[in-house]
């Protein structure tokens, strides 16, 4: 079957806050939820300046490593954990999620799947935020990277959660991904 040509991406632009954020978007679980953690960080540009008009989305399994197939991400008050969230960066370029620790999927270490958007970024960027301490050496992606590049994909453990900074450009530039099998 002939394949259709994919629609090109475009930047979210400076007014992304009008269309994308919503109440509870970054609260995958409530503060009082047993096992709630914080995943947070900053988005930086190539000059090391914070990016105040970026947006981060995460997808992740639950603590048991299994994916959740459940709607309700836009109406958190009624909903259980869906494994998906969204957070626009603030004036200091910071994002933050209240979520659960992702469990390791079968055959690999645990990570948050991340997609980044920003004014000035003409198409979205994908990356992964791996949990430190898990068996990362065997991971096919990480083992193919040199040490300094690999570090950009590993969260920093903190009291109560993890920090994951995203560098769009520069000496600490985050490793961004293309998925094999994509046709676009």
């Amino acid at each position, binding site marked *: 079957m002939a394949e259709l040509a994919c629609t090109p991406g475009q930047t979210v632009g400076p007014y992304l806050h009008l269309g994308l954020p919503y109440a509870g978007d970054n609260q995958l679980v409530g503060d009082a939820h047993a096992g709630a953690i914080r995943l947070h960080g900053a988005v930086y540009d190539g000059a090391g300046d914070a990016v105040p008009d970026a947006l981060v989305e995460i997808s992740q399994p639950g603590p048991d490593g299994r994916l959740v197939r459940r709607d309700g991400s836009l109406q958190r008050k009624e909903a259980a954990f869906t494994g998906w969230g969204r957070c626009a960066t603030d004036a200091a370029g910071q994002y933050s999620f209240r979520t659960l620790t992702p469990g390791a999927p079968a055959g690999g270490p645990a990570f948050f799947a991340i997609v980044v958007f920003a004014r000035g970024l003409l198409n979205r960027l994908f990356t992964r935020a791996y949990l430190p301490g898990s068996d990362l050496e065997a991971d096919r992606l990480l083992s*193919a990277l040199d040490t300094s590049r690999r570090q950009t994909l590993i969260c920093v453990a903190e009291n109560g959660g993890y920090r994951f900074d995203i560098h769009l450009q520069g000496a600490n530039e985050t490793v961004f991904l293309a998925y094999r099998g994509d046709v676009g």
Partner: protein
Amino acid sequence: MKAAAEPARVESQSAITEQIARIAADYQGKDEPQPLLDYPPYRSSRLRHPRSPLVCVDPDEVERWAPCFGSRDVDPVDADLTAGHPGGPIGERIIVTGRVLDATGKPVAGQLVEIWQANAAGRYHHQLDQHPAPLDPNFTGVGRCLTEPDGTYRFLTIRPGPYPWRNHQNAWRPAHIHFSVFGTAFTQRLVTQMYFPGDPLFGLDPIYQSIVDPVARQRLIASYDHDVTQPEYATGYRWDIVVAGSRQIWTEPNADDG
């Protein structure tokens, strides 16, 4: 005598247009269907694109699934951007509809589509928009809907105006609607902009021209469709969206779960 302040270096439209043409010539005939992330005519991209190539990876399970949205997430009235205010918005009422498909032509059903846009005067309902054009008290410019089983989305809105921005001297964006789209996999996530046919600003706009393949960038232009137009009410535009990453490399063991 006071020396004139050093003016900030603001490039002219002709300088930007010349850069656009030079890059287009460099890429002529090359297969580049997505925007260049490194595209200097769009000034804000200069420090916000990675310099290292993307690293190719096999998608893991979490990347082969998309988030799931349902009827409790989206109210059907959210697809009508002309509603929800005391009066109707000023502007040309339009219907924008189309289908979300994967590259094999399979519909993306029951999935979230979000849009945001300027009003008819080219002003966003956003505190950072300082364009001295009127805000419309009856228009916010935000909508969302879920696709139907055949992938169809449909919005009722007003046609947005073009607006100035500060990329260069006398810079204007062609009229557009921002679209945020999910596929059936995380890898298919797409945010883009839909444009209107025949816009005279296309050739001048570095965001549109960052897609250097002229055939590819036309995929962002809706078609006027008289079959979508409703008599005595609204003109109609059709625009289909094809998400990437469509090869079905993994199948769900239990399709009814959830």
